[in-house]
């Protein structure tokens, strides 16, 4: 006999015990709807959460709210400054999340969260109800701490380039326009900030560009911290041996203000004038999380339960990525955001389908930094849940660093990018 479509649908209806998960691969809509999850923000955290909920439980409807047309990767965006990668190569569309995974993309911004009614309001006027809400809004810059940068004109001149996209391209143009013999200065805020090794990788990538194109130029790293925050030995060695005489590191460089017109950083120890001044401002959780009053840690970041990533102050709302108060030893990074999202997706499905939440989450982290156009170093760590401390802790004896930069790790770094972009977005 042959089954016609109507019979097939009936058949599925009859087998109500059949999990919708088992139907993954069928293009048809799921036979039962478990509920709706709204995900806010389509970066490493949000895109991954949206994908994995659909991958593991297609009975859950997932709506992703994201204003941008495409995902642009912050990891590797320093290579655009070094000149060995184009911003287009870091750009991935949301098409596959929709066509392959059935995520519904809404190009809009969330303006308000009503946790009691379980509704988010959107800038264009619509509202979306949810059973569970996942917020992954990334970071917001605390420009009010730098009065001279607290206006649009100054921010166009002194760039952060700490969200990959137009600002990355604009900083590259500033570097291209800089005279040979000029000074590029980057200011790094006190930790915690997004991507601990990022500023040092950036200085290294700019050094790679300047060494070849403008060899009389100098780089000043003005660090508000007392020391290099990540991969210290590897970066220091690269500056001394690969880029001698180009990079100067100045710790304890607390920023008081910026004179944007004069490209001058006003530091506790005196003024520093640069040809290209790049200020990475202090950061806090993205605006949506602030508006929802979830920033309960120092009024900056969101406390979460590390088994579910549910906010410690609002039931039914989960927070991921750079907006959370991270566990000890857990960097604010794209890789970590991707990992957190999968723990959260599993927990959200567990809660919505009535199975127990995984009480032993475990994740590993690999963070690559580019030393030249081909050579790469990494730092790795493994993190597991500690039931007594109720947080993630690093596993002693695991993890480590590269012994030295290598082309071999450059190839693996590209492999990492291809896999994680697909893991998050396809």
């Amino acid at each position, binding site marked *: *006999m042959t*089954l016609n479509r109507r*019979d097939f649908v*009936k*058949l599925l209806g*009859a*087998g109500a*015990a*059949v*999990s919708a*998960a*088992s*139907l993954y691969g069928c293009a048809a809509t799921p036979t039962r709807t478990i509920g709706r999850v709204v995900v806010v923000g389509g970066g490493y955290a949000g895109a991954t959460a949206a994908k*994995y909920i659909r*991958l*593991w439980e297609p009975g859950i409807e997932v709506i992703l709210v994201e204003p941008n047309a495409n995902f642009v990767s912050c990891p590797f965006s320093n290579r655009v400054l070094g000149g060995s990668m184009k911003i287009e190569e870091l750009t991935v569309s949301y098409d596959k999340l929709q066509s392959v995974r059935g995520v519904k993309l809404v190009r809009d911004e969330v303006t308000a969260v009503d946790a009691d009614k379980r509704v988010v309001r959107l800038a264009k006027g619509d509202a979306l109800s949810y059973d569970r809400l996942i917020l992954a809004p990334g970071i917001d810059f605390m420009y009010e701490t730098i009065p001279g940068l607290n206006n649009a004109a100054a921010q166009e001149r002194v760039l952060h380039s700490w969200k990959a996209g137009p600002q990355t391209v604009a900083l590259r143009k500033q570097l291209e326009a800089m005279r040979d013999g000029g000074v590029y200065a980057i200011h790094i805020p006190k930790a915690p900030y997004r991507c601990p090794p990022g500023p040092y990788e950036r200085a290294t990538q700019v050094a790679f560009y300047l060494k070849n194109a403008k060899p009389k130029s100098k780089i000043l790293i003005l660090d508000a911290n007392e020391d290099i925050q990540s991969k210290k030995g590897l970066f220091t060695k690269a500056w001394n041996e690969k880029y001698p005489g180009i990079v100067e590191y100045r710790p304890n460089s607390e920023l008081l203000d910026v004179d944007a017109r004069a490209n001058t950083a006003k530091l506790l120890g005196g003024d520093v004038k640069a040809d290209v001044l790049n200020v990475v401002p202090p950061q806090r959780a993205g605006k949506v999380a602030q508006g929802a009053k979830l920033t309960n840690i120092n009024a900056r970041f969101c406390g979460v339960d590390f088994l579910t990533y549910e906010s410690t102050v609002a039931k039914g709302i989960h927070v991921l990525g750079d907006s959370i108060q991270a566990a000890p030893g857990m960097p604010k990074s794209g*890789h970590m955001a*991707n*990992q957190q999202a*999968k*723990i959260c997706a*599993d927990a959200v499905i*567990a809660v919505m389908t009535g*199975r127990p939440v*995984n009480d*032993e*989450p*475990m*994740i*590993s982290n*690999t963070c690559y930094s580019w030393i030249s156009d081909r050579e790469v170093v*990494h730092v*790795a760590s*493994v993190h*597991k849940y500690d039931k007594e401390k109720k947080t993630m802790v690093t*596993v002693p*004896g*695991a*993890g*480590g660093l*590269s012994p030295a930069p*290598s082309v*071999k*790790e450059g*190839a*693996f770094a*590209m*492999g*990492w*990018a*291809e*896999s*994680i*972009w*697909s*893991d998050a977005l*396809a």
Partner: protein
Amino acid sequence: MSKSRVVLLAALSAAVATAIASPVLAQDYKARAWAASCAACHGTNGRSEGEIPALAGKKKEDLLKKLKDAKAGEPKSLTVMHQHAKGYTDEQLERLADYFSKQPK
């Protein structure tokens, strides 16, 4: 619909339910969640997109041997994997190897 057809459908329904639901019921959710961490580099369910080795559909014994070797620091050519493998118990490595061996290539 004739009676025989109803019976046939019911039987089929049961067969389909068994065929597709049982792997789900037998799912090791914890191993699946741990394996999802590996996906960041090795691709979703171990289907790598680039230079990093794929894990999906490899023999469980081979995967487990590689993981245990990595935990012991072998081979010396490893760049990262020995640093990760040291963070997992042998039982966890076994469940991870089992999970990836069952994924379609």
